[in-house]
């Protein structure tokens, strides 16, 4: 008997949570007190189904992407002209412009930056959907990364010649982000 009471009490609590506590994805029309009582009555009996549906919904929800360039990945400040000189391909099979075939994207990135603006070169391992290694240039404002332009994005491993030679384990990366 105690088990039955506990089951029904859990149902009432679930019903109250569904009606009053659960975040609503969209507005629901006003309901009468009878509607709410009917809902609680149904949930008193069938609350495990409701709990299962909510848990299943949360399980299938995509995990938030943790791909985030952080101040801890910054290596050194560079002027825009230094970056543009460094990133101009020296090959006749690519435009002799900063970032070559990606010059329009670079111009978009820097269009509202002052000519003497300072960007930070960054490199490091991150967690996107997969572990990845990234390099690029970031605008840092008030000790925070405001925006960035990625030049290397490798999910394979850290390629030889990269600015950082080892891919740190993801645990360490997360620790760095928390410390920053």
């Amino acid at each position, binding site marked *: 008997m105690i088990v039955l009471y506990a089951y029904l009490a859990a149902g009432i609590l679930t019903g109250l949570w569904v009606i009053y506590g659960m975040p609503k994805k969209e507005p629901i029309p006003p309901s009468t007190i009878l509607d709410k009582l009917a809902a609680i009555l149904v949930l008193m009996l069938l609350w495990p189904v409701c709990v299962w549906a909510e848990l299943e919904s949360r399980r299938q929800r995509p995990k938030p992407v943790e791909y985030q360039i952080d101040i801890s990945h910054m290596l050194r400040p560079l002027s825009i002209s230094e970056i543009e000189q460094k990133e101009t*391909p020296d090959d006749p099979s*690519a435009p002799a412009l900063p970032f070559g*075939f990606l010059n329009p994207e670079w111009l978009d990135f820097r269009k509202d930056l002052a000519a003497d603006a300072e960007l930070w070169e960054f490199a490091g391992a991150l967690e996107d959907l997969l572990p990845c290694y990234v390099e690029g240039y970031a605008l840092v404002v008030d000790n925070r990364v405001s925006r960035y332009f990625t030049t290397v994005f490798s999910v394979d491993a850290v390629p*030889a010649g990269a600015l950082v030679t080892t891919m740190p384990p993801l645990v360490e990366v997360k620790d760095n982000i928390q410390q920053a």
Partner: protein
Amino acid sequence: MTKQFAENLMIDGVDHRLNSFPLDRWLAKSRHAPHFTAPHTALWRGYRANWEIRDQRLYLVGITGFAADNPTEDDSAALGEYMESPALHLPDLFPEYPERVFAHWYSGDLCIPLGDPALPPTGYKMFDVYKGVITRQWIKENET
């Protein structure tokens, strides 16, 4: 699952199957890149590219891609019943570089499976690429 067409990588005049997709990075980054669509189930990425390593650099030397935008009846007729999208080639993607394109946007590895193509690879010939330049090469043994 249908086996997918590999990319092609030429080294010293010899063609190899390539299990890496250096073009994807450019497709993801460039706002001028086309959107490709699968012409059939063996090419879900919608394109097949030819690459070459020359003087320790990676070049895109050819591509056949199937554009997702604006297919025309003429293209469909020319390409056959399975190919309902217009085919794009290197000059369509890089008009000023119709012969070869330096893949400076790519950093990562190039993976060439070794052995009989009909059998599981016995190993892989690997290249590290950093901003389009080959920085390392080695053989990776198949661990299975």
